[in-house]
Structures are given as C-alpha cells and as structure tokens.
C-alpha cells in the first residue's frame, strides 16, 4: 500500500512538472526546421527515418529511381542549422540538426563521411573549420586543425621495412 501511494505520488509530481512546461536540460536541443511540417508527424519520422532513407538509397543507387522523397539532400532543405553568427553548420558542429539527437542517443552515423551535411552551395570547409576547436601549434600560432593539416600537407610515408 505504501508503494502504491509512492508511485501515485511520483506520477502526480511528474505530471505536474510536465504541465508546468519544465524541460530537463538533458534533453537534446533540436534546431527548428523551416518549411511545411511532415504530414505523417514528427513521431513517425523520428521512429522511421532510417528505414525510409535506407529503402530509398537502394532504389536510387541500384535501380536509378530518382523520384524519391526520403533523401538527405531534401532533409537539408528544411533542417539546416545555423550557429550564433548565422552561418550554416556542418555535422562537425554540435548544433547540427542530425547531431543534436544522435549525440543524445549515442548513435554514431556514417552518412556524412560521404554525403555533405549542408545544402549544396554552402562552403563546408569554412563551416567545418569554424566548428573545430582552435589548437595551439608549435610556434605559439593558433589555428584550426583543418588549416594546420592543409599547411602540413600529406602525411609522410613510412619507410619500407625489410
């Protein structure tokens, strides 16, 4: 009986917190989208986006069907996140639309090693460089990792062993 009271009490407290609009700071901060909302609802897309995209990627790559809707390219028509300066961010930035949830769910996605994570026309080199933390280099010179890699050039080839 005591347990029942406790459970009911906790439920009421939780419901009260929800009603008050309190939101745990642990929840992901999802960037707002532009454009018309999904007619199937956000819950449906949250649960099924990976299945929809996988199915359509196979149709496109293998069968040449280009009349598809669940494509990454079209995601970014509406789900483009911007940083404080108003610049479009890439997946390298924590504020990227996909990353806001995937970081929360601890799911690493490989999409953006091949696909661009911004709409066509955005210079990802600049956006990516902004997202990376500045590093202190040997001569006390500060710069981004990408800029440093660019200056350093290709990695030296290891000497052939025996």
């Amino acid at each position, binding site marked *: 009986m005591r347990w029942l009271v406790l459970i009911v009490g906790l439920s009421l407290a939780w419901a009260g917190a929800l009603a008050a609009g309190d939101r745990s700071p642990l929840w992901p901060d999802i960037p707002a989208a532009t454009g018309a909302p999904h007619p199937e609802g956000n819950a449906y897309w949250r649960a099924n986006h990976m299945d929809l995209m996988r199915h359509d990627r196979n149709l496109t790559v293998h069968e*040449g069907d280009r009349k598809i809707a669940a494509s990454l390219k079209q995601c970014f028509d509406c789900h483009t996140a911007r940083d404080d300066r108003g610049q479009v961010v890439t997946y390298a930035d924590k504020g990227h639309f996909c990353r806001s949830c995937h970081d929360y769910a601890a799911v690493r996605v490989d999409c953006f090693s091949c696909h*661009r994570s911004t709409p066509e026309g955005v210079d990802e080199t600049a956006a990516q460089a902004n997202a990376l933390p500045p590093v202190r280099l040997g001569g006390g010179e500060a710069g981004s990792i990408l800029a440093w890699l660019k200056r350093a050039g290709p990695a030296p080839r290891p000497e052939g062993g025996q």
Partner: protein
Amino acid sequence: MSCGKSRLRGKGADISRRDFLRSGAAVASATLAPGVTLIAFGGSPAEARASAGNRWGLLIDANRCDAGCSACVTACADENGWAGNGDPATDAQWIRKVTLRNTTTGHETSMPVMCQHCAEPPCVDVCPTGASFKRADGIVLVDKHICIGCRYCMMACPFKARSFVHEPVVNQKTHAPRGQGTVESCTLCVHRVDAGGTPACVEACAATGHGAIIFGDLKDPESEISRRLAEYPSAALRPDLDLNPGVRYSNL
C-alpha cells in the same frame, strides 16, 4: 505504378510509403516490353528507372581527340567533385588522358580512358560485399554504403579505372557523394543519365568543338552511337579479355 504494402511497422505503417513519397509527382507508367514504357499523365522517359532495355555507352574517336586538350577531365572533376589535394600519389582519377606511342613509326594517339562499363566487369566478380555492381542499363557503379574499401576491384580492373579515397572529404556534390575509405570510379554521370542527359565529359568535348566522344544507347539500333559502330571500325580496349566494354574507341 506499383503500390507495395508497407513493410514498416508502427504508428504510420498504414500510410502507403510510395503513395506519400510520390504525392505531388503523379506519374503512371507501365512496362509493355523491355525498353518500351507507356508513360501517362505528364511523365517522361527520363523519369523511368534503369532499364535492361538500354545499354549506355561511349564511342571515342581518337582522331578527333586533341593531345593538348583535357576538357573532359576537368569537366568530370568539376561535375563530380574529385579534384583532389594536388597529390598525384593519392588523388582520385575518374578519367585520364592517355597517350599511346607507336615505337616503330613514332605516331602518337591521345585519348581519354575511364571506367569502360564492361558487360562482364571483373570488379563486380571480385567484390566480396556486393558493393561493386552493374545496373540493369549496363552502368557499373560502387555502392559506397556497402563498400569496405578492400580495393580488390582496383586490382581486378585491367584499365586502372578505379580510385581509392585516402583522405576525409568535404564539399561533395549532392549528386556524387564520395568519402574516405571507399572506392570510386566514373559513373557515366549516372545522375545526368537518369535525368535524360549526357555525361559531363561528352558535353565538354562537344563544347571545345572536337566532338570526340559520343554518348548513346548501344541497344537502340537507331541511336547515333549504334549507327557509327555499325558503319565504321572500332575497338574495345583489351579485347583479349572479352569483357564487352560499353566504351568503344575508333581510329585507335
């Protein structure tokens, strides 16, 4: 138009996927026979899927190809975004200019060489994951979702047509995704072909006035490429391997 039953479970499963995904682009098509498609309500053949009724190919006239011109290579790099980092040891090459020299006469022939889109592609034979595949219309591609970067296909290709992406890539084209750890090669500009267009190299070559490359359907006897192949002598590279490539050369 087929409306398969949705295989998705859950709340939205009663919505037929193809219905809502295609809403707003109502095209009805029916395949009457291989290569013959009846399309109604504003559709066009360009919107049809890759069909076994076509086989896309190139005919390259080595006599018309200028040794000093590399417009096709530049156009391909621009179109597909593989320009690279200036390191020839690791940069990708989807298409390259090759010069053949007859050691007896000293005569030199210049021509572009890219994926030959073989009917019997060795890269597909050796691929351990099924990433290397041939579409129904004869275009040989890499499905980079499945590619593990083992590079067997690069070893198997007699034309050295494939490249491995060694470094992280950003700023890809949306129609040509490419990334570190996967193999890639000429796609015959499959995104253009699917939209009813011609590959970027063919357009660039025509724009220079050389017109050395023709693109067309090898299965359509009325296409310009088929008529030229029927009328004039042509050759496949490495004919000894009997790969039946979709890319043919004349005046080699």
